[in-house]
């Protein structure tokens, strides 16, 4: 006989059924009867308690007489037990031994590399279709993407490049003035911006601005099944979604980089004229002698590559995204991280290659 008394409300905490369960484990009673005459009010805390008592009873074959319970409680207990627990649905989160975890991490790392390679293969195929003029995408989408990645990125690229240029000039000026070589600040800013920083900074800005957006867009399209709808319409998401994005960024990055080079040199000029009192003509004269076309085209070529890398990582992480809000967030984060890692790696490879080639 289990006697229930007083108010059973969630605000008063959950009473533990442990005492009763212990009773059942020891000498199982013939049958269990409830008496709820003294019960004053109840909610799910009572139902939870009773389910935890009734279930072990059933397992042990102890008959349970629910007659004494209020009819509402009886109905809820029946409902809770109507559908039996699905076998294998509850996953046990066992803490794995350290070696297992290291092994799993390795396997996952390998899987992620092979996923990247297979995406690279798919993209290459799609580019092949594009070259043969067979790729299916909407040119309206491409134009819109070009506008978003290109023209709309101008304010932030202007700001970052101008500041980069003036920081270079400022840091350089402090050192160069010690040798009375302040005029060479123009060479410093010009070469740094045109060779490396224009492309790298634009790449990083676009990784945060556009790459993350691509990952979020494609991730959301996966959540809302838009990519499935495309596939079943016979349109490849690779051609329809990824190609225009890579094309757009690949086309816009060189232009943005050129613009960034120019703005960076202007930023340097502001410091050179304002702080070092170098005449503007002298500054641009130095720029003209130190920066040549090979340097400029090298930087622009790098920018095109960075653009493709940013779009690649954005689309890759977007299409890999899981189907939840936090998964889309992770995809955007991961896209930015991947982009920046790829840009810096490519930057290193370019530096060595250009050095060997003597450019």
């Amino acid at each position: 006989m289990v006697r229930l008394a007083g108010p059973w409300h969630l605000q008063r905490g959950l009473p533990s059924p442990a005492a009763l369960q212990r009773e059942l484990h020891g000498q199982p009673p013939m049958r269990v009867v409830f008496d709820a005459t003294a019960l004053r009010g109840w909610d799910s805390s009572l139902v939870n308690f009773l389910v935890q008592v009734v279930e072990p009873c059933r397992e042990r074959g102890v008959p349970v007489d629910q007659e004494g319970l209020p009819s509402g409680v009886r109905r809820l207990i029946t409902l809770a037990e109507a559908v039996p627990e699905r076998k294998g649905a509850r996953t046990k989160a066992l803490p794995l031994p350290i070696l297992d975890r290291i092994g799993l991490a390795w396997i996952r790392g390998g899987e992620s590399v092979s996923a990247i390679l297979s995406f690279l293969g798919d993209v290459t195929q799609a580019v092949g279709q594009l070259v043969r003029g067979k790729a299916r995408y909407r040119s309206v989408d491409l134009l819109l993407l070009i506008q978003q990645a290109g023209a709309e990125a101008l304010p932030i690229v202007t700001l970052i490049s101008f500041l980069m240029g003036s920081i270079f000039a400022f840091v350089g000026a402090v050192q160069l003035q010690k040798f009375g070589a302040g005029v060479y600040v123009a060479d410093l800013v010009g070469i740094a911006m045109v060779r490396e920083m224009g492309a790298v900074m634009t790449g990083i800005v676009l990784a945060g601005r556009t790459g993350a957006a691509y990952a979020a867009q494609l991730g959301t399209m996966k959540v809302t099944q838009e990519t499935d709808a495309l596939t079943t319409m016979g349109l490849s998401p690779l051609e329809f979604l990824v190609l225009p994005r890579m094309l757009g960024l690949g086309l816009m990055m060189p232009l943005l980089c050129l613009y960034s080079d120019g703005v960076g040199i202007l930023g340097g000029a502001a410091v050179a004229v304002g702080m070092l009192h170098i005449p503007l003509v002298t500054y641009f004269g130095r720029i003209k002698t130190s920066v040549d076309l090979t340097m400029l085209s090298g930087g622009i070529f790098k920018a095109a590559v960075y653009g493709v890398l940013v779009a690649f990582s954005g689309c890759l992480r977007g299409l890999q995204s899981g189907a939840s809000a936090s998964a889309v967030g992770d995809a955007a984060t991961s896209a930015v991280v991947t982009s920046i890692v790829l840009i810096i790696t490519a930057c290193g490879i370019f530096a060595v290659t250009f050095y060997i080639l003597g450019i």
Partner: protein
Amino acid sequence: MAENEAHITVRDVTMAFGSFVLMHDLDFTVRHNDIFIIMGASGSGKSTLLRHMVGLNEPVHGEMFYGGASFTRADPVERNRMLRGVGILYQGGALFSSMTLAENVGMPLAEYTDLGPTEVLEIASLKLALVGLKGFEDFYPSQLSGGMVKRAGLARAMPRP
């Protein structure tokens, strides 16, 4: 076409996620002019079965046939051709959020017929009118209610006349 000719055949299909087998040895035939309903408790794999039938998931065993030809063993190009006769209405509508309703509904037409833009728009308007969405051609999916999105999805899923 004969009245009772097999239209869609699912033979011996087993579906699984990893080691978790959802359904096994599934066998059924849908004949021409049939209205075929798949019923089951939630979580029993109805959507998953449909995903398998349009190639979004691959069965671990068994085969599906469309009008006698194997869909499971077809190459991607052949599959696309087969799927052109299939209309799918997704659970959440799955309209392309960057396109207007008319563009959404007209997209299969624009991609797979030689119709010009004005003709595509006309047919798209007709299909939207059929689901009671006349006048909503230039709305984006995000501007509509859930039920309206679903109806627009139905308009897009309608097989081409």
